[in-house]
């Protein structure tokens, strides 16, 4: 493990990513302290440019853009992380069962997975929100539903290779049951690729959440970055900061997650890093 940490933290790109993510997390946690007023409250005259009374200006209704950005980080991160957790849990379950039992079970579960994979994921998410009605919870459900198949495939592949290793046979010979073998012997050895895929999935989830909010399918009464872009897009010529500020926030966050994810990948698969 020492080697892992030295390789992970010895990578300068990982530092940049971690610094941004750390900052973001801090802002999200202390949102109510940093911006005590409701982000939806009208606090000044509309379309005030950045640099005046409000650092990042105000929007078409006179709402504080900085407060929106701060509270938006909380919503965006929460929804993305929760959706990823659900997707990883479900995908791992499907992939592990399919890979471990093989045969008919594998066939059925993998065709089921492919069924989800063949539907264009963003359209599918829109349809789901349209059916379920927009809310924070439904956003999580929709994003998780369209993002679990890759996880299932990764886990299945890993389980297939791990289960043929001799220590799994040793557990069978010792008399351990299937569920225990899967949980204690096989799954811990599939963690590395799972962590990498999962971390990158958070970035995708942020993008999907922003895109849905942009289309007005996000949670109402919840300030998020996508919502801010969606609300500000009609005033792009008059007030460039309405779209640009949350856009840069999304860009930097997705970039940071990808940097950290790549760093994790390099640290967990040292052979790949050498190539």
């Amino acid at each position, binding site marked *: 493990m020492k080697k892992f940490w030295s390789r992970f933290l010895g990578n300068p790109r990982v530092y940049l990513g971690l610094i941004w993510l750390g900052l973001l997390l801090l802002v999200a946690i202390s949102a109510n302290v940093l911006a005590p007023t409701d982000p939806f409250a009208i606090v000044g005259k509309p379309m005030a440019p950045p640099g005046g009374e409000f650092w990042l200006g105000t929007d078409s209704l006179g709402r504080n853009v900085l407060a929106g950005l701060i509270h938006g980080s909380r919503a965006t991160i929460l929804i993305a992380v929760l959706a990823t957790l659900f997707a990883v849990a479900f995908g791992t379950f499907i992939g592990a069962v399919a890979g471990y039992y093989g045969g008919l079970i594998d066939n059925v579960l993998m065709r089921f997975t492919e069924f989800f994979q063949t539907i264009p994921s963003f359209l599918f998410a829109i349809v789901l929100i349209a059916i379920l009605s927009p809310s924070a919870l439904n956003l999580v459900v929709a994003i998780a539903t369209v993002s679990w198949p890759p996880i299932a495939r990764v886990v299945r592949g890993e389980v297939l290779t791990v289960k043929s290793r001799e*220590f799994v046979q040793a557990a069978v*010979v010792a008399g*351990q049951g299937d569920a225990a073998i899967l949980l204690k*012997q096989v799954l*811990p050895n599939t963690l590395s690729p799972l962590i990498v895929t999962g971390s990158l999935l958070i970035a995708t989830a942020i993008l999907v959440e922003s895109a849905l909010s942009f289309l007005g399918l996000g949670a109402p009464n919840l300030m998020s970055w996508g919502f801010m872009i969606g609300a500000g897009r009609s005033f792009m010529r008059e007030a460039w900061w309405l779209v640009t500020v949350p856009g840069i926030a999304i860009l930097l966050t997705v970039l940071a997650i990808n940097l950290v994810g790549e760093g994790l990948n390099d640290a967990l698969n040292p052979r790949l890093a050498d190539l």
Partner: protein
Amino acid sequence: MTDIVLSIDDLKVALPAWSDRRFAVGGVTLDIRQKEILCIVGESGSGKSMMGKAILGLLPAPHVRAVGGKIMFEGRDLLELSDDDMRAIRGGRIAMIFQEPMTALNPLMKVGQQIEEVLEIHTRMSPAQRRERVLELIRDVHLPEPERMIASYPHQLSGGQRQRVVIAMALALEPALIIADEPTTALDVTTQAQILHLIKELQRAHGTAVLFITHDFGVVAEIADRVAVMRHGEVVEQGPATQVLGAPQADYTKALVAAVPGLKPRLKELDADANVLLRVTNLQKTYRTSSGLFGGTVREVHAAKMINLELKRESSLALVGESGSGKSTLARCIIGLESVDSGLIEIDGERISGRTRAELRPFRKHVQMVFQDPYASLNPRQRVGDIIALGPMLNGVSREQAIAEARELLHLVGLKPDAVDRYPHEFSGGQRQRIGIARALAVKPKLIVADEPVSALDVSVQKQVLELLNDLRKSFGLSMLFITHDLRVAATVCEEIAIMQRGEIVERGATAEIFATPSHPYTRSLFEAVPGREWISSLG
């Protein structure tokens, strides 16, 4: 000295900063002369392969690179050459034979084309000349039906045939030097004998110098003119083969030679009326693979055909056979990892064949297994204590007691008891195999099935592990079914031997009898194929 083909002078190969030693090769000086086979022999990690790679400029750059010394070949220092010049020498003047012929050949190209490609790149022969040369080379390496052979793909050939193709490719341009890196390690013992014979014959006919890298002293005795023994990146002894093998000077060489398993059969030391522990009656197992998505032709492999076997209490039986003989399948059936098609397996009079996995659970503690690969057989994410304690805990022993027992077992197998708190990657291959043995003993089994338990280990470690198994067998009163491809190992461990070929037991009896008078022709061919047989016998 004009007869020196390649001269290595104080070669140093540096390892990356994070490895446990600084140099893979630390100052090696060697000469290879014309028309001689120089064997580099050493255990894993001795730097012998890195040296071979350094000569051809195939080191895994940028992490591993040559940092000092010279490799003089035909008046030039190979370490100073440009990539283009090096490419002309590789394959042209120096050729390489690899350990695994399947990965050395392109699976999507016919073997004839692959040999021809070498000629196409390096010579100006016409297509007709090239074809003639390819056929000549195929005949040189004694492959049957050259015309059909050049139109085959690598996967259609056997391992031995593939290695012959690789040798033909190496010879295509009449190189001055051939580097062979463990070329027979992946092959069966009878095939190995043929390939060794072939290499020697071709080397004599073409007058090529050969640098032969191996870990097996038997192979050295078979083929070497001169020997260099390597350890930790340094040459500890070099000289003519007869001298190094017959009267080794360095302590390390002496220890290695002493560790080579002898051909002295083990004598039967048990009374004849001991009762039968394991009985296998008319066991059959066939693997069926349907080719293609829609069924189609079914391929059948008879892994076990009407096997009958008996093992008495506190005795040991070696199942000896080459790959594909069905010996591992038989072991997996006995251990309950594989179901049988028909026939009966009984332990202590209780039937264990034909039961489901749940029904088998109560019988698991009677039969345990020691696996082949010490690196794959221990879960890298569990502590050694938990690995050993798993079996007893599943049988209802409390965790505290199971861990306490694990400490005792670790002491018994020659490790420190506090190893229980450490992870498998902190141990060497031999130590891991000791942990594997401790795990098998933890449930106090009656029978241990050992599937090639020492074939992945270095020869000196191999000897220690075999001695350990032997001691434990006596003190625990165990029976052992020992699966191996190596008659030498079988002879040192077991009183009885069964020889398997194509799913059948062709000969069975006391080790001493089989060694004295092998009756089946296959058994005899196995004995003849043992590398360095005469030298090993001379060790006494």
